[in-house]
Structure formats: C-alpha cells, structure tokens
C-alpha cells in the first residue's frame, strides 16, 4: 500500500502546496525573460473624514495592472455593516476578500451580542486578521462608521497597525489627498462642506497620481443610514470637440495623376503566436 492512500490531515485555510513549484518556476524562467504574473493592485486614492453628522468616505475608481488600467469603474467602497463602510487600497483581491470576510464576521458577532456592530469591533477584527498573515495580505483599509458611541474612522495598514483619526487618506494618491485635507479640515464640519472636501481630496489624487483616475465615489454615513454616491464627480471626463476639423474629399483640386507599379519581395517572415488561453 502506498503513502498516496493517505492524504495529509485536512485543514482549511490557505494552502501552501504550490509555493515550492512557484519559486522554482520563477527562478527557472526569469533567465529566459518570463515574469510571474503580478497581482492587480488598485493604485488608489482613498480618504475619509469625520464630520458633525457622521462620516464621509471617498475613493477613486481606477484599478491598475502594473502600467495598464484594468478597470475604469471599480467600486472601492465596501459594505461592512448597515452603519459601517470601508474603503480598500492595495491588492484588489485581498481588499475584496478581506472586507467580505470582515462583513461576515461582524454580522455573526452582532447576532451573538444582539447589538448593532461597532466600528471599533471591525477595527479589532481587521487588525488581528492582518497581523496573523504578517502583511502577506496586501490590503490597506479605511474603516469608518457611526455607532452607538459616535462617529469613528480607523485606517488600517497591511501589517496590522491602525490609527484612529478625524481624517486620513491612503493609497498611492494619499499624499495629494492628505494635503487637501490638511489644508481645509475643521472639526465638526457641515455635511455638504465635508462632502465637497473629500471629493476635492480624491480629485487631487486623481489629477496628481497616475495610479488613480476616472471618477470620485462617496459614501455618507449619518443617523439616517448610509448613502453610496457613485460617480459623485468626474474630473477626468474626456473633452468634447467643438467642431469638425476634417476637410471634405475633393476640397483640393487634382491636377494630374500617375500610377506606378512597385514589386515587393518578401525578405523575412516572422510568425508570433498569440497566447489566447
């Protein structure tokens, strides 16, 4: 009888079976010029702030695959609970999977406690989960919401550290966004003023950072609930042409016409097959 009759003890979670194969492939193929596929990052600008009535979260909508725009209208504001939303930056799949898992955890927890979930609970779950994976899950998140203790905003980094702040921005466009927020933030702002400030911060990221683009999404969480304002502002819409600048065929008169035949011989033929899998 064979060892193959006994599979390893089943354990859920991540499987590391292919890690050795992957490292062997990378080392073997990099000499021939091939590269391992890179994970799609969101290359983002996300920002949030706490205002008088609640919290306002904002994000851009571009997802990049290295230097190519993979998606022009992706949603980076994720639902965690009816009163808690979260913006995700970093590796797109990691942010998506982490926020979905966190949303399930929060729902189970609130069913067990019998109370609506709190933002600090979401923050703690997230920190513990990300620290457990030592930063290999590349998700930077801004978690914000309104609960029984008030309005809170936490920014969580991939290695598991978090800060509770009145406003913050993350992602590749964080520098541009935080400069706008630092300039104009005031405690206990009015809701409309806060929306405009967050939209301006994200717009600064869109215009100043290559990894962010397309449009601004906002999420406003107040006592009345959460509203997702998709496409709140589109600073990067393509310009409209004001007139036709092409000349009609026949505008220039033809004086004379001469046709000459040229014979071409094929010197070299190079066939490159396309990888269509």
């Amino acid at each position, binding site marked *: 009888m064979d060892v193959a009759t006994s*599979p390893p003890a*089943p354990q859920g979670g991540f499987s590391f079976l292919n890690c050795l194969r992957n490292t062997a492939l990378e080392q073997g193929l990099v000499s021939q010029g091939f590269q391992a596929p890179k994970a799609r990052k969101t290359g983002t600008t996300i920002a949030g702030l706490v205002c008088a009535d609640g919290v306002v979260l904002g994000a851009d909508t571009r997802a990049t695959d290295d230097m190519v725009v993979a998606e022009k209208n992706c949603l980076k504001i994720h639902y965690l609970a009816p009163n808690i939303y979260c913006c995700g930056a970093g590796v797109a799949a990691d942010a998506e999977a982490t926020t979905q898992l966190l949303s399930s955890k929060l729902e189970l927890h609130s069913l067990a406690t019998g109370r609506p979930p709190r933002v600090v609970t979401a923050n703690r779950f997230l920190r513990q989960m990300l620290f457990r*994976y030592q930063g290999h899950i590349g998700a930077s998140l801004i978690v914000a919401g309104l609960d029984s203790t008030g309005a809170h905003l936490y920014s969580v980094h991939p290695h598991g550290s978090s800060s509770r702040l009145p406003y913050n921005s993350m992602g590749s466009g964080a520098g541009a966004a935080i400069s706008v927020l630092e300039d104009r933030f005031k405690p206990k702002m009015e809701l409309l003023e806060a929306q405009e400030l967050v939209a301006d911060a994200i717009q600064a990221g869109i215009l100043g950072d290559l990894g962010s683009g397309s449009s601004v999404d906002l999420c406003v969480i107040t006592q009345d609930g959460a509203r997702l304002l998709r496409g709140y502002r589109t600073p990067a819409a393509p310009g409209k042409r004001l007139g036709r600048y092409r000349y009609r065929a026949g505008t220039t008169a033809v004086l004379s016409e001469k046709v000459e035949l040229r014979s071409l011989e094929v010197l070299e033929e190079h066939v490159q097959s396309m990888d269509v899998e």
Partner: protein
Amino acid sequence: MNSRGSGSQLKDSIPIAEFSASGPFGGHDILRRGFTSVKNELLPSHPLELSEKNFQPNQDKMNFATLRNIQGLHAPLKLQMEFKAVKQVQRLPFLHSSNIALDTLRGNDECIGFEDILNDPSQSEVMGEPHTMMEYKLGLL
C-alpha cells in the same frame, strides 16, 4: 485486546508516511508526491506555512495560559478534559467529521475565517483509501 487498536481510537487515525512502496529505487509514488528533497521536507515553503499550521494549537495554548492566570489551574484542566472527551466523537477515519462540539467549546461556531472558505475539508476532492485507513485505525495492519 490489541493495545494498538484501542490506542489509535483516541488520536488522529490517518496513517502517517511509514508505508512506502517496495520499489527498487523510489521510496514513494513519484507521480503523486513529486520528487523528494530533504530541504523541501524540512524547511517551510512559505514564511506563513508553519505559523498557519500551528495557529489553532497556539491559540488554544494562549487561551489556556490566560485562563490559568485568571481563574487558577482548575479552569484549563477542566476545559482540556472536555476537549479530550469531545475529540473522541469522530466519524470513520476517511470521512470528514463535523466536530461541532469541539467548535462550540472553542467558540468557533460563532466565528468565520479563511479556513471556512478556502480549502474546506468537508469539500475535499481527495479521500484516503477507506479499507487501509480502517485497518490502520483498528490495528489490523
């Protein structure tokens, strides 16, 4: 009574790699297991591999240590006795057991994690050889 047969009722009764094919060169099935390498078997293939494998036992140890510091030695002792009792309720070795009492004791019945979504053992595509595993468990091998 065969002591090995009754002893293996308590521990995890999936056979370990003691039985190898008696080929002249290979120590095992190369098609299914791949080439052997001492380095691959000793060293982890990913920084997280060991910490993930030991995550649940380490959590348990941490919780028991905390419980001992707060409530005294009797608390973890009683809990560990309950754990031991509950781990004996298993299906046949090649079938997946729900471990519902164990999950409730650990508090995992109200939690969800990546281990519930990815690589769920109840939906595994491979199964051990039933007869061999039963024979190993009953000590008839």
